[in-house]
């Protein structure tokens, strides 16, 4: 069984169904890229995976363990192994850059401060923000905030990293600095599910691409298969649209 196995997953917001029968598998070290039109349920899938929205049906199995989202202890264990980076960064506005990165290891994992601080400084160095340790999020550019958000996610040492359109809220000139970091993570074999429409980038780092439409996965394959030879009509239409946009 794959490291992450999603089977027949469904979810609703109130009454309206948003995900229906999503099945996906991600192996350790793989980068799965999720693409699809706006409103197709990509963000919702990531929110369900990290337990921000309870699934209606189906199963998620992580490292051989089925995740029961209704059991708080299981949810905590899951969140100990996964981390998410949001489109809008969602940094804690009341904390400095350094504290944003340290708060979870320190307060939640209760690890000793000197060790946590050393790691946090190293992570912020890795994302190129050593000079901004004591700045507040509101004093940073979007790209810088997103890099802090990535460092914050990495600080909990996730085995699976979820990335939700992490560059789509950024000004074009800031996109590359964030993509560079994700490229670095891919080279280090971080297992990732990344929602992204940066086609060139997806081709470069994704081992698999899943195309979503109306709450389901309509096509899945290698980047070459999806982008160069989409099988379904819906996939063809979407791919030609994003190619034209680039």
């Amino acid at each position, binding site marked *: 069984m794959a490291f992450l196995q999603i089977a027949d997953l469904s979810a609703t917001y109130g009454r309206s169904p948003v995900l229906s029968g999503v099945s996906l598998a991600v192996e350790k070290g793989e980068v799965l890229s999720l693409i699809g039109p706006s409103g197709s349920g990509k963000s919702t899938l990531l929110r369900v995976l990290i337990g921000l929205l309870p699934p209606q049906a189906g199963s998620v199995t992580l490292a051989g363990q089925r995740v029961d989202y209704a059991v708080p202890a299981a949810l905590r264990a899951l*969140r100990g192994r996964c*981390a998410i980076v949001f489109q809008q960064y969602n940094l804690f506005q009341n904390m400095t850059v350094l504290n944003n990165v340290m708060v979870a290891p320190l307060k*939640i994992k209760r690890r000793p401060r000197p060790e946590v601080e050393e790691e946090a400084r190293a992570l912020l160095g890795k994302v190129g923000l050593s000079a901004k340790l004591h700045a507040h999020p509101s004093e940073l550019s979007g790209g810088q905030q997103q890099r802090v958000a990535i460092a914050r996610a990495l600080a909990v040492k996730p085995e699976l990293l979820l990335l939700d359109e992490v560059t789509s809220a950024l000004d074009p000139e800031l996109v590359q600095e964030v993509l560079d970091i994700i490229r670095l993570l891919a080279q280090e074999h971080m297992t990732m599910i990344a929602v992204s429409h940066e086609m060139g980038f997806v081709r470069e780092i994704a081992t698999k691409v899943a195309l979503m439409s109306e709450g389901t996965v309509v096509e899945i394959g290698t980047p070459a298969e999806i982008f160069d030879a989409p099988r379904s009509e819906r996939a063809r239409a979407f791919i030609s649209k994003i190619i034209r946009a680039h």
Partner: protein
Amino acid sequence: MAGIWQELPRFLTWYNGIFLLNALLNTLLLSIIGCLAGGTIGLSLAIIRCARGRAMAVPRAFAWAFTEFFRRLPPLVVLMLAFFGASVARVDLTLFQVALIGLCLIATASLAEIVRGGIVSVHPNQWDSAAALNFGYLRCVLTVILPQAWRVIIPPAISFMLLFIKDTAFASQLGTLELTYAGKVLTTKGFSAALSYGTVLLLYFALSYALAGLGRRLETSIGIPADR
């Protein structure tokens, strides 16, 4: 005015001074204890009320009902409820204590609503981030949400507290000695209403002015700019 000057020597006695000081002290006590109790219990109620999940359904409903009930009643009615409540329950309380309980109920409900407004003003994505990092509800509230909510909570909380000083006057209706009651007593002793209530008015003003100064210091200390 001439009348007041003639009254003044008879008014300015040690006895009246101590009487008024006593009344001032009681007004101050009612205000401060009311605000402290209201602040802490109100904060707790607001935190309970904003919790999600079925496990919290009953406490949440209680917090909601308490806040809505006592926030909507006229202050005098709350004090009467406290008075009759105490006598029905046959607890032996002084009138001062009964008035204090009623005032605490009022302050608790109002401050709970102000704190709740502050909590919901924080962007929902802050909850998502915290939850994804395994923060529990209380930890999220204390380390992420409230630190961002203070600047929304503090100004209306301070203006409530200043208005609340006026609410303590209702304690006079239960026969508790505080400033308004003192004014009433002084007029029955034959002093003119202008002098009696004029003195009371000055004391209320001084109290409120001093507390407003404290409030402004608090606001600037948390980074809310002074009046523009």
